[in-house]
């Protein structure tokens, strides 16, 4: 019946600017690496490679989780398009 959101199943990727993997993908990969390493089927070279890759992913994930300020932008539309300005709402915590 209703033809919803024709043709677009997901938002387009923003392209090369976002080289970083998505958090959930990095986390899933890290879990896979830990399982692989724990399976004991790797030779030394592979084990060390897996370890290095895993540590890098863990660091990436932790970095994304580190406590940082909430960023709040206010979207404004003018004649020449939209602009975003930082919005200060007074911390109420």
């Amino acid at each position, binding site marked *: 019946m209703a033809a919803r959101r024709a043709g677009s199943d997901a938002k387009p990727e923003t392209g090369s600017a976002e080289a970083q993997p998505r958090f959930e993908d990095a986390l899933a990969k890290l879990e896979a690496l830990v399982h692989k*390493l724990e399976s004991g089927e790797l030779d030394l070279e592979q084990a060390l490679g897996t370890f290095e890759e895993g540590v890098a992913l863990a660091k990436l994930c932790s970095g994304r989780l580190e406590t940082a300020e909430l960023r709040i932008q206010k979207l404004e539309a003018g004649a020449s398009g939209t602009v975003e300005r930082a919005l200060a709402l007074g911390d109420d915590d």
Partner: protein
Amino acid sequence: MRDPATDADGVPILGVSELVELLRGTLRDAFGEVRVEGEVASLFRSRPGHLYFDLKDDAALVRAVMFRAAASAIGFEPRDGMLVQARGRLDVYAERGALQLVLSELRPCGEGALRAAFEKLKAKLAAEGLFDDEHKRPLPFLPRRIGLVTSIQGAVIHDFLRALRRRFPSSEVVVWDARVQGEGAWREIVRGLHLLDADPTVEVIVLARGGGSLEDLWNFNREELVRAVFEATTPIVSAIGHESDWVLCDLVADARAATPTAAAALVVPDAAQLVQRVDELELRLTTRTRAILRELAHRLEALRRGLVHPARRLAESALRLREQRQRLSAAAVRALERAGARLAGLAGRLDALSPLAVLARGFGLAFRESDGAILREARQAPPGEAILVRLARGRLRATVRESLED
């Protein structure tokens, strides 16, 4: 254009069209947009879809027209006698010199009428499939940016941001400040929705507003807004009103939250839990790698100990050999003497101990065929086990039928 004619007193004499045009300008300037509440009468819908009716109360009446574009979007079926609230501009219908209201919006007044309009629009959109589960899209695990359409006045935005800050502190929010109640607020909401939807870094959009009466929340039942939510490519969370207030936006959205705080919990994961999970994975990674390295170090050490220069090993061996040979011959002599003495003693007992002697008395010796173990207990040979029974003369190969414990 001819010169304006004047009468004897110098007062200009107007043509009819001029008069009407002047009147129009005056009406526009003096009134601008008006909102009028009244009862619908003499309603007529023209073939192209324009609506014509009178708007009246006990003492007065004004003609109203609503052209097709506006009329097709009102989301309910006006009828004679219905109490409505209209919004529009005053104009003069030149051909008849008649005052008329040209309406841009029309909605039913009063809770009962609103409720009826709500049910009607709900049924219509449901029939079109707008609320079907198959159209619901999953929310991202962790959106890069969160779009928020709400009023930056009031408690709602604070509640939402506070919950976000607590749950996932490094979130990024893009706010579109919109009125969330009152005439025409839905236009601002739709506008923000479109703008945020067009931004690919905004991966989820939250529509938020506090609770209120059906009338307060009416903007979130506007067909245009409901369709805009439906057509957006970004997943949308509707956090309108309280638990008990349902609006059509809630039904069409990809997820519904009863409160702004609940909406925050829907759009971002709990950072504290994730930190724990990542830490645990990193620990396992390090522990396992350490174990691998330690094991390897042990093996290396063992190998190193075994690694001796061949020449040195040869010399050592020769030396050892000489020693051993001397010790061996000395020992052999001693051993031979001892053995001779023992042999004499043993010979007598040997006959008695020999299993052959025992077998001769009618005993059998049972062995497991698989490994040659002597069977002393029934449970050593479960059913099906192949066994060998040695008798005084000859052997039996047998298979265990049953294994009975005493």
